[in-house]
């Protein structure tokens, strides 16, 4: 009797708090309802509709979407040489960007993690992080300026009797490498920083030179971080179309072909859009086997 009297005397807020405290399931469902409606219904729902629409077709006269199940789009994707070339070129660009990023990132990370004086290292990490906050478009615009006719690249290469690459495939690879480089430096830096010094000493005691120590000790321990960084460099390059539009000249990658199909043939655009998604998922699964994802 007394407890009910007490409960009745409490404020409604207090009672609600009590109910919530006694019922964790109710608490959980209140926490999750809004986010799940947003992510599962709105986002996953739109994605699902998009991928279903990849199996629809377009009336070639009216550009109206015809909602009849067909695998025509995917058939075209794998048989028309144009699409095959674009897909292979895009994967090639993503791989080239990844290799270039790793090659440029390694000396920087080795310097910041092991050669620079320890008190200067935090500042150097900030120096690597800062460009990540600079606008994506501004960074691509910078390369548009550098590679323009008579721009900085031409000016630097002129004494050597060369000229800059101009806008095109090479320019796109350089700009993408520039954009995603910090994502490669940071994990390699972290791995090199955690590398125990006594392993390196042990290797030296056993008579290995710097080259042998690098090959047998440093490289195997850093490789998972390179794989982790490559997840970013590879997948971000594969989906990009803005950079190619700005510095790529006439180059077409998957993103550009998706973009140019949206207005007239949405089902084809959707089918093309599944390609980078599938490639990225396959790449992620391959990288998971190296143990890279756990170090992300």
């Amino acid at each position, binding site marked *: 009797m007394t407890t009910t009297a007490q409960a009745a005397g409490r404020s409604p807020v207090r009672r609600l708090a*009590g109910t919530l*405290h006694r019922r964790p399931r109710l608490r959980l469902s209140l926490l999750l309802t809004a*986010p799940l409606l947003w992510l599962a219904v709105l986002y996953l729902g739109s994605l699902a509709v998009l991928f279903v629409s990849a199996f629809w077709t377009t009336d070639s006269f009216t550009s109206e979407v015809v909602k009849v199940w067909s695998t025509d789009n995917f058939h075209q994707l794998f048989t028309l040489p144009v699409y095959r070339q674009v897909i292979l070129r895009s994967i090639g660009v993503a791989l080239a960007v990844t290799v270039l990023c790793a090659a440029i990132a390694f000396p920087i990370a080795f310097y910041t993690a092991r050669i620079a004086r320890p008190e200067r290292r935090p500042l150097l990490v900030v120096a690597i992080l800062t460009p990540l906050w600079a606008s994506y478009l501004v960074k691509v615009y910078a390369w548009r300026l550098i590679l323009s006719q008579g721009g900085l690249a031409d000016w630097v290469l002129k004494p050597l009797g060369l000229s800059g690459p101009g806008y095109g495939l090479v320019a796109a690879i350089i700009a993408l490498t520039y954009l995603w480089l910090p994502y490669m430096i940071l994990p390699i830096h972290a791995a090199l920083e955690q590398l125990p010094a006594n392993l390196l000493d042990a290797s030296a005691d056993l008579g290995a030179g710097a080259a042998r120590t690098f090959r047998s000790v440093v490289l195997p321990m850093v490789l998972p971080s390179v794989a982790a960084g490559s997840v970013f460099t590879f997948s971000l390059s594969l989906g990009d179309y803005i950079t190619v539009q700005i510095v790529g000249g006439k180059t077409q990658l998957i993103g550009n072909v998706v973009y140019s199909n949206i207005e007239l043939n949405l089902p084809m655009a959707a089918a093309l859009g599944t390609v980078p998604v599938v490639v990225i998922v396959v790449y992620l699964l391959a990288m998971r086997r190296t143990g890279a994802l756990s170090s992300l």
Partner: protein
Amino acid sequence: MQLSRSARIALRAAAGLGFAFIYVPLALVLVNSFNRDRSASWPPSGLTFHWWSVAWENEGARAALWVSVKAGLGATAIALVLGTLIAFAVARHRFFGRDAISFVVVLPIALPGIVTGIALNSAFSTVLEPLGVGLGMFTVIVGHATFCIVVVFNNVVARLRRTSGTYEEAAMDLGADTFRAFVDVTFPLVRSALLAGGLLAFALSFDEIVVTTFTAGPGIETLPIWIFNNMTRPQQAPVVNVVAAVLVLFSVIPIYAAQRLSADTATESRI
């Protein structure tokens, strides 16, 4: 590792070149905003402050900046609420599908922007347009919030995992109810994580171009869209140069704030 003198010098040189590769383009953007010419040929024939005052007066750039700020604030607010809710559910409860949720949260940022963009675009045009809601600021905010949730979630969930629930239990033993314990104990513990997540979310939204392209109607122009539309117009080049330089300078703000925030969290953990 005993590196020979020459190996050390070679690594230093390579790292120096690497840092030059990172910073020369950004420096060029800064210098180029003072370029007297409309072309980007190097070296510039002369330097001037003229274009900075022209850019300051530019209505299009100002309006676009304002649109970006509004979209960023809206998306950040939604992401803070939804990201925090998911973080509390994942960190403080056990339930079926918990791992799947962490995966779905990452998806909008892991998939190419163009895929997310078209998916949202066709969903908006089939569901919202019959209801009389066209593409505009509202759809931009919804699109941005979708990929901003993950950064808030990551920051808050990491903080919750490091602080155990015993503080809240102690507060309740001392007579605080669920709400009181949240306001007095839990919220102060996650506050700096919320700030860091919010900062990241705003920066992500402010910089986004692809999802914006597909979720904005014809009347909505964020700053990245404005830059993209004006980049190839020779007449607008000097103003674009100044806007680009301003954005490079802006990027120091979040770095400074992040340093301050982590100093703040460091003191917190010392207490």
